[in-house]
């Protein structure tokens, strides 16, 4: 059984929320990912991921200020929870473990000449 369910995109979003720390809301997360990873992120994909992460308890949110560019709609700021942090660590650890388990040969193949 998987201990922590975290998809690839979800991981990216989670990390980005961490990067942005206090300024993580929909548009800022989107822009951050787009600039850092140079990949296009649709609002739909992002919001779905955010909702899923919140449902899983990896993120918590708070209501923010409403600005005029947002036509008076409030921002929703996200923050990583303790559980989210553990999930991130778990993912990282498993990656590291796998990395370290790869034998040298596999990544730096040397061909022995006859």
């Amino acid at each position, binding site marked *: 059984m998987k201990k922590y369910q975290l998809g690839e995109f979800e991981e990216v979003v989670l990390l980005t929320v961490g990067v942005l720390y206090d300024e993580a809301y*929909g548009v800022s997360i989107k822009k951050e990912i787009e600039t850092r990873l140079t990949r296009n992120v649709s609002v739909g994909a992002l919001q779905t991921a955010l909702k899923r992460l919140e449902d899983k308890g990896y993120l918590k949110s708070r209501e923010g200020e409403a600005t005029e560019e947002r036509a008076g*709609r409030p921002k929703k700021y996200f923050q990583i929870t303790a559980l989210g942090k553990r999930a991130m660590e778990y993912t990282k650890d498993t990656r590291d473990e796998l990395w370290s388990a790869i034998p040298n040969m596999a990544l730096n193949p040397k061909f022995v000449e006859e």
Partner: protein
Amino acid sequence: MKKNRTNPPKFFLRFFRWFCHPKLRNHIEGDLMELYDERAKESGKRNADLKFITDVLLLFRPGIIKPAEGYKNLNTYGMYKSYFKIVWRNLLRQKMYSFIKVGGLAMGIAACLLISLFIKDELSYDQQYLNGKRIFRVVGVVKNKGEVMAFSTFQAPFAKSVKDDYPEIEQVGRLNAVELFGAGNKEFRRADVEDNSYDEGFAYADPTLLEIFQIPMVFGNASKALDAPNTIVLSKRKAEKYFPNEDPVGKLVILNNDEKNPLTVGGVMQDYPSNTHFQFDFLITLKGKEFWPGEQTSWCCDNYQTYLLLSEGADPKVLASKVTASSIEKYYLPKMLEDGVPNAREILKNAHLEFQPVSNIHLDSEIKDGLSHGNRNTLWLFGGIAVFILIIACINFINLYTARSANRAKEVGLRKVTGSLRSNLINQFLTESIFFSILSFVLAVALAAALLPFFNSLAGKSLTVPWSDWWLLPVFLAAAIVVGFFAGLYPAFYLSGFKPIEVIKGNVARGSRSSQMRSFLVVFQFTVSIVLIVGTFVTYRQMNFILNKKIGFDKDQVLLLHGANTLDKKVFTLKDELLRLPQVKSASISDFLPVRGTKRNGNTFWNKGKVKIDRGVTGQNWEVDVDYIKTMGMKIADGRDFISNKSTDSLGVIINQSMAKALGLKEPVGNEITNNNGDGKQYTVIGVVEDFHFESMKETIGPLMLRLSFSPNIVSVKVNNADMHEAINSITDVWKKFSMHQPIRYSFLDQNYAMMYQDVERSGRIFTSFAVLAVVIACLGLFALSAFMVEQRGKEISVRLVLGASVKNVFRLLTFNFVKLVLIAFVIATPLAWYIMNQWLQDFAYKTEIGWDIFLTTGILSVVIAVLTISYQSVRAALMNPVSNLRSE
């Protein structure tokens, strides 16, 4: 600034707002607007619009769209969920009470289900005919001095004459199932086989009968199968027995070894469903059949069941009265005047015809037609018992609910304090009881299915649970809800009426408030139980009375050999051979025996010379042989028995006392009597035999005449007190010498006699089962109530014990209240049971007394049962260590 603001495409914005989950809507819309604003500034409105649309469309995905069933709890689903959770916890916490609640109700419901199946089956008779609404049987009703007699047999030409007279009668068909004519059982074999084999279910039928009933045919054609003289139709199962894997149409069969008159198979009928009155496996055509010369045109004797198919729209009542008037005028009156029947007009004035719908035949048990019937009274009785058992079970439910209310009182109080309305609480308790009821139903269905074989043998039926019927589930569910609703109604109102303050202060007298109601319900339960127990005793006593009553003949040690008619005259030699056996005391050749299922011949008798003057006596005319009275162990009351080789005895007859009385003969011996056979024979009475029962004891012993004649179907053999097994072996050896191709077939007279009273035995067994069930359910309730009482009065008992009360004192204290209730129930039940069982006994002409001892036994029995039930709890309470109960304070 506001004016400069560009707006995204309205339609898509609205679309987004419509589909988006309301909790997400605000901030996502904010994000969208922010992005749109930015993009519009950077790359123009057109581009921003496009991107906005893409974003909206990409947002249209499962995580974002609001759920279809709504996001807010507009219903009370959650509340009900919590109700169920509470029920489940209560159920698990109080295992014994829950078990009694559910188990008792399940038993009651199971009994109800079985009885409903039974009633449904009884009501389903003869519903399968396509033209069922138009098929009728003619019934004659005669009133005589306040007595009403109904019969269903008519003269041979009656059917044809009414059909000719009335075009509304589309078809007529007659059935002759009279044993005297050879219907009933026969020896049967294919013409190409030598061995006879015995079979039952023969009858003579008009070819049209197959069409009236629209009997589906496997082979042959319904409209032609019986058209030719000497044809026979078999049922499918019999065809498979005698003609496996072949089409028997056109094959020859031989009945009773009569090789001169073989019958041709005209067709094979589909087997009838078991719920039809018409149960024959062999129908022999009446076409071209005459049982004696002129029989088919004679208005003398009524032997034919007459079925009618009326045309569409014909009114059976109107038609029946028209047929009554015209057939009396045209046929019956002239015939009776010709016979010189005195006051013929007056007799006929009190007679009329009725057309009985075919679907009523099974339950109209008062019509004498020789069929086995259901009985409407039995249906009512059963239905009543079912309802009462269900009520008893529901009472347990109610009692336990209210008794344990103290345990729920705090819950009720708290719920009220936190804002629950009374209606909410009523809802909650009704939900609980419906939940319990559904649980019980599930259990009950399983229980009923498991008990069905037992019930079938009890009721003499072959019922099955109609699992595959579409209505089963909805009906059960609806019934469960109704039962749960009614059982829960009183407790719901009672429990929801608690005042929160009192409850939370602890002021509710623990469960005592409804104790009157509970006492009343316990009394009711025991009243029903006691009535059923008395019913059981009375039916068994009547059964014993019948089986042990002096019946006027000796039914023990008599062996009946059936099917001897195939030996023809050789049967006399058989009798002689049998008499030579040391084990055989005597033997007699006669088909007329004082048990059901043997031949009967109803005649009218007069004293000599009174034929056209007196009204005549209806009675039996039996053909016996010289040794009959000796073999049957009957007693001669006056005159003498038949003497062999005495030529005068060919016209000498022996009558029974009832006949002598009916004919008004003070000194019958030497008198001459005559019957309506039309041969003008005068019989001289040579002796009078003591009355013996030859019909069920439901009827009084009728007039009877015995005369010497030849009726060789059955040979009765009276065996010495020797080993019966050995006797049968030697008799079988003798039989084999005579009849190679027909296996011996025998029965015992006492068993045949007991068979006549199967229905009494059956009602006895049914009463027993239901009485046991009712008592068990009532005791379950009593047990739970006493357990509850001990629980509630625990402290009181402990204090009493500490202050020096003995175990006996405590036991008496706890038991007396309940015994009082049982005694009250007994007082109520006694007259009720007496009345009901008296009604039941009215069916019998010869009946036992309902003595006071039955009531005494029942009273003692019910008190003992009740005390035993309570004593477990009372004794436990009395033996308890008082400290354990008092320590907590």
